């Protein structure tokens, strides 16, 4: 059985199509990163999967059932974001105890040891926490629930670098000991390259690509050289990104399917090769046309005036 299956999924808000004929299928017991620019539809997709939002049309299934208003999906899914709402009279420890009462696979020992490790006080309340601390606490709830489908929407919001590192480590260890399907969206893809097995890139409400992390890391390659030298080589290649770095220097990202001979010839012509990280590629391919030169352009233009 697939953990997640979406077919021609559409979700429309009043003015904007948030999900546009989205198709996605994720196997059980994978750890999958959901990447995409702001407004690509990541949160909408995740909330629909958790049964919090209702799809407009299309098919969406979590463990074979439609998530909206479904108790089975709710019992086997947890959705963690940075806007978790817990009753304000409850202390942090009491919230964890409620989690234990609700979730069937809840590991209270894990919850308490993480709680102590990250230096929480049992009597603290959720609304008294700083942004980073709040995210850390929510992450503990997400991990300890051991839900067959665990969804983290931007789990690292506000966390400092050290805590993020701890989080990735805790996530990986717990995932290896207790395999389950974990879907997480993040703007720190570069930090999670060693953690994620698959990457789903969303763009404008649909899936741009869905591939194993290992493939993604070598999917593209960066070329640097004189524009006049690069141009003839690039003509028949799939170009993901073009950036003029100087008066006549250019940086190109193309699909990494060059033959050995081509590589040799290009090196001879003075073209330099560089690897492209998964996160950079995700940003490059989803760059809207017309913004190709980036935010620098905005400032250059105003300086000209």
């Amino acid at each position: 059985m697939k953990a997640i299956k979406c077919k021609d999924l559409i979700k429309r808000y009043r003015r904007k199509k948030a999900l546009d004929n989205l198709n996605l299928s994720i196997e059980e017991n994978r750890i999958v990163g959901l990447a995409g620019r702001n407004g690509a539809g990541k949160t909408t997709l995740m909330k629909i999967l958790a049964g919090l939002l209702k799809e407009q049309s299309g098919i969406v299934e979590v463990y074979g059932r439609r998530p909206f208003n479904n108790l089975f999906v709710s019992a086997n899914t947890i959705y963690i974001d940075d806007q978790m709402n817990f009753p304000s009279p409850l202390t942090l420890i009491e919230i964890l105890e409620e989690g234990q009462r609700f979730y069937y696979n809840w590991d209270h020992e894990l919850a308490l040891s993480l709680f102590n490790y990250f230096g929480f006080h049992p009597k603290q309340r959720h609304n008294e926490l700083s942004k980073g601390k709040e995210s850390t606490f929510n992450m503990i709830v997400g991990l300890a629930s051991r839900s067959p489908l665990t969804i983290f929407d931007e789990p690292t919001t506000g966390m400092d670098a050290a805590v993020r590192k701890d989080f990735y480590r805790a996530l990986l260890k717990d995932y290896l000991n207790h395999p389950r399907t974990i879907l997480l969206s993040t703007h720190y893809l570069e930090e999670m390259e060693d953690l994620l097995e698959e990457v789903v890139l969303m763009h404008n409400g649909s899936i741009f690509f869905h591939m194993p992390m290992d493939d993604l890391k070598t999917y593209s390659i960066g070329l640097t050289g004189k524009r006049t030298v690069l141009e003839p080589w690039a003509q028949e290649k799939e170009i993901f990104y073009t950036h003029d770095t100087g008066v006549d220097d250019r940086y190109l990202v193309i699909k990494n399917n060059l033959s050995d001979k081509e590589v040799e010839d290009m090196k001879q012509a003075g073209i330099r090769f560089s690897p492209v990280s998964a996160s950079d590629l995700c940003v490059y391919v989803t760059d809207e046309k017309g913004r190709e030169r980036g935010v620098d352009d905005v400032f250059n233009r105003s300086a000209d005036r």
Partner: protein
Amino acid sequence: MWTMSLTEVQTVDVVKKQIGYKWRAYTGVFMSLVIIQLLGVLFSLNGSGSGGYGRTGYDIMVQYFSGDIIIVFTIFWGFLTALLFTTRAYREDDFSFITNRTSSTISTILFLFVISVIGGFTSLLSGYLLKVLTYILFPEGKTLLISNPEGPGVWIMGLVSVVLIIFMFSSIGYLAGMMIQWNKLFLILLPVLLFGSMTWLAQSGVMVGEYFYQFYFQEKNFILYVMKTIVSTTGLYTFAAFISNHLEVKK
């Protein structure tokens, strides 16, 4: 090797857990109950009516005290608490753990029933507090304490009546709240429509408020009263549940 297993759950189990969760989480509800009933006692000390005689050398002043204000305040508390439970923050609290709309609504309604029982019970007890206070505070007069003239049977009937009326007003609050959550326009529309239509009907001689009062509060037949309130409450909650089924949480 640990393997992931999927769990089938029963609505009843989740509802039970949700009620326990609310019981532990919403202690503020009982705090406000205590405050509002103490206020009720305070206002009741003013007396609900008085009369006097002056004849042949005697001057007799009679001051009446009744716990009605406490009950009215508690009814109002039930209405407001239900309204509060429909706000997004409270609904989202449910969805932080396992639930669907059905179990969330059912558990909220059952929890409102539980607190209606507590509110009704304590409002009757507050009546005793009032009696004790009048006895202490007005030592110059002879205080005539009237209680349970017809034994515990009548007292229990009184309790049931009070609980049911609080529960009914909680259903009104819950429905109003759900309508407002569904469309914010109802925040203005509901009072305008309610008072507008009441005024309009009053002009053509139909006193809705009076009719309402007679229909529920002046019903002499206990069984009929119980049926009236239960049917109304059920209808209002069903309508509210219907609306809440169309609400998305966590936008």
